[in-house]
């Protein structure tokens, strides 16, 4: 436990170690720490910004959605209106078509009746003439009564 040269040796050793630490150990470590601190604060700021942007995007998306819903309901309303219009139009068309067909059919029936009547009339006339001829052949001259018979046929 004597005080001796160790005292001075220890002082010098201490000084050398402190110098080495000052020159080679301390600066890179502190720089790395400062650099990391900077990176972390930047990262936090970026995260904050990202969150803010997300909020904005969500708001925008909600707006878009609302708009789209409005448009869709408008389109549906228009489509429904159009559909009822189309149905009405079709009904109208069908009714007029039916009317037209009915009119055509009526006319045809009338025509057919007329034709049948005409045919019948001719047949009746021929028959009457034939009958009268047979009668008259026995009794009278056919030519003498032809005018009276045709007048009769005209009345039918």
């Amino acid at each position: 436990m004597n005080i001796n040269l160790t005292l001075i040796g220890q002082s010098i050793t201490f000084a050398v170690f402190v110098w080495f630490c000052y020159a080679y150990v301390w600066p890179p470590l502190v720089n790395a720490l400062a650099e990391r601190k900077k990176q972390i604060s930047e990262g936090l700021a970026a995260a904050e910004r990202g969150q803010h942007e997300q909020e904005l995007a969500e708001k925008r998306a909600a707006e878009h959605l609302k708009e789209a819903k409005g448009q869709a309901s408008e389109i549906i309303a228009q489509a429904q209106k159009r559909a009822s219009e189309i149905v009405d139009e079709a009904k109208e068309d069908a009714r007029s078509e039916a009317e037209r067909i009915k009119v055509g059919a009526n006319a045809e029936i009338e025509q057919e009746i007329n034709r049948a009547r005409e045919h019948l009339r001719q047949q009746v006339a021929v028959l009457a003439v034939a009958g009268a001829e047979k009668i008259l052949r026995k009794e009278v001259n056919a030519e003498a009564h032809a005018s009276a018979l045709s007048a009769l046929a005209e009345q039918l």
Partner: protein
Amino acid sequence: MSGESQTAGQYIQHHLTNMTYGNMPESAVGKHLCGEEVPAVAHAGWQMAHCGAEAKAMGFMSINVDTMFWSIFLGILFLFLFNKVAKTATSGVPGGMQNFVEMVVEFVDSSVKGTFNGRNPFVAPMALTIFVWVFLINFMDLFPVDWIPAAAGWIGHTFFGMDPHHVYFKVVPSTDPNATFGMALAVFMLTLYYSFKQKGLIGFAGELTLHPFSSKNKVMQLVFIPINFVLEFVALLAKPLSLSLRLYGNMFAGEMIFILIALMYGGGWVVGAFGGFLQLGWAIFHILIITLQAYIFMTLTIVYMDLAYQTSEDH
């Protein structure tokens, strides 16, 4: 115990003696300084001391080999590890070792920033060196007291043909006042240097002479100057003295208790087992002490540096 033939007193003495290499004066030649059974000092000049008395005879011109070896070894270990980390330090995700080193560095850095108000890039690295170095030095105290000295004794006996009882090897440099005084002296020199640099010769002299008593009266002031100087000079010298003695005293006492506990292993199974229990308890408690002493040494160094930088006289 390292030797069965030793008495408890010899055992303790053996553990408290440094391995000393020094310049033996002519006056000691031929004397049996280490007792009659040890050969007398053969010649003057540089040689290893065989015991504490021979080391004492060498006086100032000697060096404690074990203290220097362990302090330099641990200092290089510290600088090697920290330098390795510093070289590969990234600002990205730190690895295990870098994490640990950064933790220490941040702790020291915040201590310095909280206490030291001047501008000096030298203080923080110095605080880091003190903290880690002193901690490592103190940590040697936790190795069982006989391991390393016994290994040194075996090496000395086997390779150098020495008597193992005269191979002294103190493992904890901070139980050697030379080591703690050496560090405190370096710190003291730095504080003196910066005091002169910051305050100038006049300012520093004023700080030493115009406090704590001062008077508007010129005559009274002249009377006060020597009184102030005595008080302040003692206070100035007390700084390095208390700085080194605090560390030395704590570590020496802790080491002493370890040695006393180690003596119990020679007292049979029951006493030995109790000694083992005590050693465990004391070692666990000592972890706190060694860390605390390293921290106190560092903090006081920062405080002294801060005082050296305080130009306004507000104490």
